[in-house]
């Protein structure tokens, strides 16, 4: 591996940030420019949305269940087991639902996008597309961004609902709590602000997953090894960005809503 001087390393990283920002910006600008590829958007929505459904269903359900088990243990110490539904509800909707769904979709789709586009780059298919007079940014990147943002929003809702249901089932089956009581307390505690916070995040995470996946795919170099590297980097970078952006977004939204 070639060793770079600190100045060259910094220059390379700054260039990568600039290239990523340009790709992300262009993917939004292209929404307002012709041609728009609706068929490609629907195809991608199917791949991202329905394709990720099993993994999101399992993640949501099991996370809700394990959150219930852990929270019940802590609440029992304070004699507040009746608050279980509220705690699981707020935890799932505001934080765990969006973040875990985002991470699972990142693992599945950022890698898929990076490997698919990367393979197209190294086999000159992207050059061929440009040579045929088609803008790969409009044809390949924008549909992936739109579909991921749109589908992650609904996948998060499904994950939240299954998390609450999974938690409720475990609460009633293992802890002997009344399912209806659990469900009504979980539902009633939720405020508009909680839903806003929980449903704002998948929009940001969907954008991160798709733009990072497309960026690493479009900048893949060096044959099949380069495609493999791009795929790994896409998953690592999108997962890290989700976690960092989650913290920033949570702090920002909490300050807007006056939470402490």
């Amino acid at each position, binding site marked *: 591996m070639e060793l770079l001087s600190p100045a060259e390393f910094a220059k390379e990283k700054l260039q990568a940030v600039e290239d990523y920002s340009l790709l992300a910006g262009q993917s939004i600008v292209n929404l307002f420019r012709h041609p728009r590829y609706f068929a490609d958007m629907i195809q991608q929505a199917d791949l991202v949305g329905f394709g990720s459904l099993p993994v999101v269903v399992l993640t949501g359900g099991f996370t809700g269940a394990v959150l219930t088990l852990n929270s019940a243990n802590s609440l029992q110490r304070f004699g507040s087991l009746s608050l279980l539904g509220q705690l699981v509800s707020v935890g799932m909707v505001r934080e765990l639902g969006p973040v875990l769904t985002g991470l699972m979709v990142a693992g599945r789709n950022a890698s898929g996008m990076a490997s698919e586009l990367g393979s*197209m780059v190294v*086999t000159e*298919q992207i*050059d*061929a597309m*440009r*040579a*045929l*007079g088609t*803008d790969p940014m409009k044809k390949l990147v924008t549909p992936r961004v739109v579909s991921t943002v749109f589908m992650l929003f609904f996948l998060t809702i499904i994950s939240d609902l299954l998390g609450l249901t999974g938690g409720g089932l475990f609460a009633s089956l293992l802890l002997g709590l009344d399912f209806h009581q659990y469900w009504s307390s979980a539902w009633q505690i939720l405020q508009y602000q909680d839903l806003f916070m929980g449903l704002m995040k998948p929009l940001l995470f969907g954008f991160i997953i798709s733009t990072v996946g497309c960026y690493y795919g479009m900048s893949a170099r060096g044959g099949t090894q380069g495609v493999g590297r791009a795929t790994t980097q896409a998953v690592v970078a999108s997962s890290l960005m989700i976690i960092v952006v989650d913290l920033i977004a949570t702090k920002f939204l909490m300050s807007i809503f006056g939470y402490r």
Partner: protein
Amino acid sequence: MSAPPTTLEQPLTPAAGSVSPILVFENVSIGFEDKPVLNAISFHLNRGETKAIFGIAGSGKSTLLKLALGLFKPDAGRIQVLGDDVTQMPEDALFELRRKIGMVFQESALFDSLTVRENVAFRLLEEGDIPEDEVEQRVREALSFVELESTIEKFPSELSGGMRRRVAIARAIIAHPELLFYDSPTGGLDPVTSTTIVQLIVKQRDVSKTSALLVTHRLQDAFTMATHYFDRKANEMRPLPPGARAEVPMSFLILRDGNIIFDGDVHELARTKDEYIREYVA
């Protein structure tokens, strides 16, 4: 002696009678990672002419085609394609220009998730306003030109290397381009398949009279093109009678270390005294 009777039917693209340049390179230089690839090269391609570009691997042949398509920007110099300066054009305008150009890539570069039909029809489908029946008819017409109509439903992975090149030629010619670029179309193919590809290129040249740049490291392919013509009646490539010149002009350009060391026709090439070229030709 006059050119052999080519008995052409209606050409796919009408040939222009003028000899105005369709492509001009003026002092074009480009390098990658501080390594110069092309050094201030200048040449032009006349309308209706076919020019074969030679050079050893890494001499900048493919780079030259990508520069002409605007896929790369040169470090210095100007490139005029169909009257437009591609070095100054924004990407959106380049997409418009590229629709008038056909390109056959080195490894075909077919879209592997699309069928042969979708690959060949790609450009027409992107234009959006062409009726489905017409698209189907033109796809079949282009595939029958390369004699691969039977593969229409197949995916590129199901085709041999030679078949993929032929599909790539069909994809390049379907929109009746004014200019065609071939990037090593016979590279990595066996001699029999190479001859089939050369025959198709000669057929396209003589039937459509489309201006073309052909990049290759196989001199024999370009010699075959310069010394043969396509007989439409017999539907095969035939040698030109002795002393005859092809109806479509053909020239040669040789690159060495990023510089042009030869630019002329087959007769000038045969008479050259340059040691390197003589060795290359031998």
